């Protein structure tokens, strides 16, 4: 089983996690460590605390607690003993680990001119385990096709956190880039895909090389601010499709408009809930969504029976 992410934990925590049933370990989504509080894991949309003997419980009082020493060790390990090389990451509040996994951090912030400069006294960790789900995009893709252009439509994928946006985006990139996205009977060639991976989550790049399969014709600009990255990619890599994760700042909108005018297709994701009536989007996103920039909207949700999605057209009317 591939569990390279286990090696980021100090021995005490790792041995507890290794005692979990294999099935659970495979489905593990999050490992949460909070100093002086119970060790928590999330799997399949449910949460458990770990007991000292490796058993599971939902009763916080029976759970094993992690101490100062463990959080100190954990931080030391995930930063390669060099917190100072992670200043940018600490400003953003998370660190990307080998394999595209992401360690969220919380603690006490240090401000400079009213902006977060740094997090110190880090006491809360949340490892989000990234998993490649090949075929995650299969059911969504047919709704996003531009039949005449043999390409894809401008699409915005909206969902609350942890509903599979990034997984879907990654698989879309793989499918479009490898040419397995056209209608069943036709054979469309793969397109040049450019991913602006600001948080190193889509491709999980290490030293510039993607750790996930994002397709053979895909270029990744890793750790790059989205707006700037979009412009750089248009200028330098002549992409057919640009993919960005979690848009939402004013400059992102400007860059997206630029990309649309350059004839590049855009697939983007954003935090939010729903589309059309009853949607909960940030004002800026709502403006972008209403501005006829996008031709398709996909809203994701996750229930008891796995992922569900709905597709809307450019007018935000439901198609599915």
């Amino acid at each position: 089983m591939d569990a390279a992410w286990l090696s980021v934990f100090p021995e005490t925590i790792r041995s507890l996690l290794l005692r979990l049933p294999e099935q659970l370990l495979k489905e593990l989504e999050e490992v949460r460590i909070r100093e002086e509080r119970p060790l928590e894991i999330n799997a399949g949309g449910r949460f458990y605390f770990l007991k000292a003997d490796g058993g599971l419980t939902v009763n916080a009082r029976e759970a094993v607690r992690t101490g100062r020493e463990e959080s100190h060790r954990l931080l030391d390990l995930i930063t390669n003993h060099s917190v100072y090389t992670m200043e940018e990451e600490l400003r953003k509040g998370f660190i990307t680990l080998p394999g595209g996994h992401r360690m969220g951090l919380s603690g006490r912030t240090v401000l400079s001119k009213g902006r977060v400069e740094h997090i110190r006294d880090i006491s809360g960790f949340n490892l989000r385990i990234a998993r490649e789900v090949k075929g995650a995009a299969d059911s969504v893709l047919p709704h996003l096709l531009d039949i005449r252009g043999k390409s894809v439509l401008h699409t915005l994928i909206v969902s609350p956190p942890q509903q599979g946006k990034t997984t879907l985006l990654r698989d879309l990139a793989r499918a479009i880039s490898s040419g397995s996205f056209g209608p069943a009977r036709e054979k469309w060639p793969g397109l040049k895909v450019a991913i602006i991976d600001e948080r190193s989550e889509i491709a999980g790049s290490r030293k510039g090389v993607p750790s996930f399969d994002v397709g053979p014709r895909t270029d990744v600009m890793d750790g790059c601010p989205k707006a700037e990255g979009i412009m750089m990619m248009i200028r330098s890599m002549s992409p057919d499709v640009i993919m960005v994760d979690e848009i939402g700042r004013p400059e992102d909108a400007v860059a997206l408009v630029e990309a649309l005018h350059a004839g590049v297709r855009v697939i983007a994701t954003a935090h939010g809930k729903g589309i059309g009536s009853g949607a909960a989007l940030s004002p800026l996103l709502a403006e972008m969504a209403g501005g006829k920039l996008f031709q398709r909207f996909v809203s994701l949700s996750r229930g008891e029976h796995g992922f569900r999605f709905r597709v809307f057209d450019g007018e935000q009317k439901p198609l599915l």
Partner: protein
Amino acid sequence: MLKMLGAIMILLAGTVAGWIQARRFAARPGEIRRLILSLQRLETEIGYGFIPLPEALRRIGAQNREPLKKLFTDAADAMEAPRSWTAQDSMHHALKANWSNTSMKTPEREVLYQLAFTLGTSDRTSQKSHIQSAVRALETEEAQALEEQSRYEKMSRSLGLLVGAFIVILIY
């Protein structure tokens, strides 16, 4: 005849002991200076190079002579897999294992020991200020070591011979 031989051996031993002691006095300021330069190099690697700590220590080790070389590379080794100790534990371990090979004394060791608690655990500005304060502490020790050298180096050399002679006289 045998007595004579014994006396010569005692004299020789005294002289050698004196020389060794003198060498320690002579070597200490030089080692402290090299340690200071190494820490300044570390400051540059951290402050401007964003080089991760194990890599930075390895580079500094490679540039140094023994015994400092081993001090730094040992610390880097302990930080990396398979041991993957914390920066603090690795430095403390390396100090423990290698300090007796240096001519430096407890105050210098204490400076590095204290520095190990903060090494790698904060942002660049604070790392730089921690290293700078360690460098300042070492500079004070260096001044003192130079003074001790000028005062005691020659003295311990002659003292060794004299103590040897004294023992010989007592025995005779």
